[in-house]
């Protein structure tokens, strides 16, 4: 563990804005900044940096296809550990030997993710249920813990090379870290997730889905704010110079998401759509990649207009509620 002066990191971040695109929480959401950031739990998550809401994937110009050129590398700074982990979860789906998602991966490979430990978790956090926590380093190149005018840093070489090494952390720093970590973790509700994937799979035709999903409005708020949801739509836009093919965030909660040209919709009602969202995160994801597709950040709980609480759903379906 190292300790680096806060202002040193803040100053460095502004300097790096020259060669990097800096994404950080600002006015409550993760967005591109000139190196400024705000200490908060952002509403729009860290995925905005690596999977932006709108992104050009190619151009068709003068009868030729052009790949969208790479931009400057990204520094994602000041997000919570849950968001950092979320990006590594998205990476599981994007990394694919046969069909790698180049636009995500090339950003991710050159990018640097720096998270700030979550000393005051919210009431809707349930991150510790998924094998990580408010002080977790998974998915981060560095984890910063605020202490007075210092950051205590658990980081890798990539981080120290850019931001300097600071000094060796003192014994009291380590104690502070452990204590803060313990205190934060204790505040967080744990939801039992043992064998959740199998339990869900065995209840796929259960009538309880109808009950659970009834109040869902099928808006995309949960999926757009979710740090691990990565579904997208691809559309062509006509421009004066040709065609821009872009991808946009899309949501499995929308009825048109799966609606076919013939009018047939394999997931016709809220029941199938909610089921798919839950199953994808807690059954299909573990089946495919060995990890749950949720980090327990609680955004979908907080921002759902009808208070659809995924924690309750997991308790019902996981058999403990």
């Amino acid at each position, binding site marked *: 563990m190292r300790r680096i002066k806060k202002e040193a990191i803040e100053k460095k971040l502004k300097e790096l804005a020259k060669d990097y695109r800096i994404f950080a929480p600002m006015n409550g959401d993760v967005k591109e900044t000139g190196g400024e950031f705000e200490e908060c739990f952002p509403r729009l998550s860290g995925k905005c940096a690596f999977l932006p809401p709108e992104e050009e994937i190619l151009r068709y110009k003068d009868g030729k296809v052009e790949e969208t050129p790479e931009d400057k590398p990204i520094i994602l700074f000041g997000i919570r550990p849950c968001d950092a982990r979320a990006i590594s979860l998205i990476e599981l789906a994007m990394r694919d030997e046969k069909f790698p998602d*180049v636009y995500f991966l090339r950003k991710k490979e050159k990018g640097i993710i720096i998270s700030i430990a979550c000393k005051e978790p919210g009431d809707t956090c349930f991150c510790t249920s998924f094998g990580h926590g408010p002080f977790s380093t998974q998915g981060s190149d560095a984890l910063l813990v605020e202490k007075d005018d210092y950051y205590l840093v658990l980081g890798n070489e990539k981080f120290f090379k850019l931001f300097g090494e600071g000094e060796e952390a003192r014994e009291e720093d380590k104690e502070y870290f452990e204590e803060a970590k313990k205190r934060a973790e204790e505040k967080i509700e744990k939801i039992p997730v043992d064998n959740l994937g199998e339990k869900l799979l065995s209840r796929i035709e259960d009538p309880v889905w109808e009950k659970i999903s009834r109040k869902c409005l099928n808006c995309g708020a949960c999926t757009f704010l979710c740090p691990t949801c990565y579904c997208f739509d691809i559309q062509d836009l006509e421009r004066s110079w040709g065609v821009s093919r872009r991808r946009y965030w899309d949501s499995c909660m929308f009825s048109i998401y799966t609606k076919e040209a013939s009018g047939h919709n394999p997931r016709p009602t809220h029941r199938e759509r909610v089921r798919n969202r839950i199953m994808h995160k807690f059954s299909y994801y573990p089946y495919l990649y060995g990890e749950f597709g949720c980090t327990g950040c609680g955004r979908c709980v907080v921002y759902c207009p009808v208070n659809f609480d995924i924690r309750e759903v997991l308790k019902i379906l996981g058999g403990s509620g």
Partner: protein
Amino acid sequence: MKNPYLPVIVKVKRAYFESDDRSLKTIDVEKPEGFSFLPGQFCEISIFGRGEAPFGIASAPSEDFLRFTINKAGYVTTAIHWLEEGDEIGIRGPLGNYYPVELFERKNVLIVSGGFAFTTLRSLLLYLLEERERYKNIILIYGARRPDLLLYREELFELEKREDLEIHLTVDTEFPGWTRHVGFVPQVLERVNPPAEDTYLVMCGPPAMIKFTLPVIEKLGFPPERVFTSLERRMKCGIGKCGRCNIGPYYVCRDGPVFSLDKLRTLPREY
């Protein structure tokens, strides 16, 4: 890293309507260099400015063009219907899996199809006929509402003459000059009564046909692990990333479109 989103630009070599009502159009396009595939795979076709949509490859792997037959249904397919010889389109592929042709060796193969779902089955049929001696009996049962809606019918009429192949073509109702079967595919299948033993069955058709054919298949004694079908879903990326075509943990674009019946039965009925 190879960018799987980039289409290759190819020229349309031929474009013509299949059916009298102009609802089905076939386009034969240049085959890009090094493009190799197996029957059952599909391509994403780009009409720049309109978008991309997935279509099964109807040409045989050995043919020097790629064939697609497209039903006019939505935004992209309408634009495909405007295509003429010489136009440029983008294609990405081959994508998805293929009919398990390795399993078919030294077995009987029964192909059951209806309507314009026949596309990839033409590819399969021609593929099997190329090395005919590797398979035992090959039977095709194919039906459509009207004779003109039977895809590639002139070619099929030619193939009917072959001794080493059994073809049953059918239309829903009597038509002047039509001398082959009359009736729905499941009825014809029952009438033909092919032996299930040692036989693999490949089935593609509209939902109604599938629904009424399944009980017949069961009655004839085909075990679900030897029945294969190709699914359709709305797709965008075609490579298992954009999310919309999953059925359970499988993406139709990546892990399909060909599924065995026994595998499908383990999945939620979202197709």
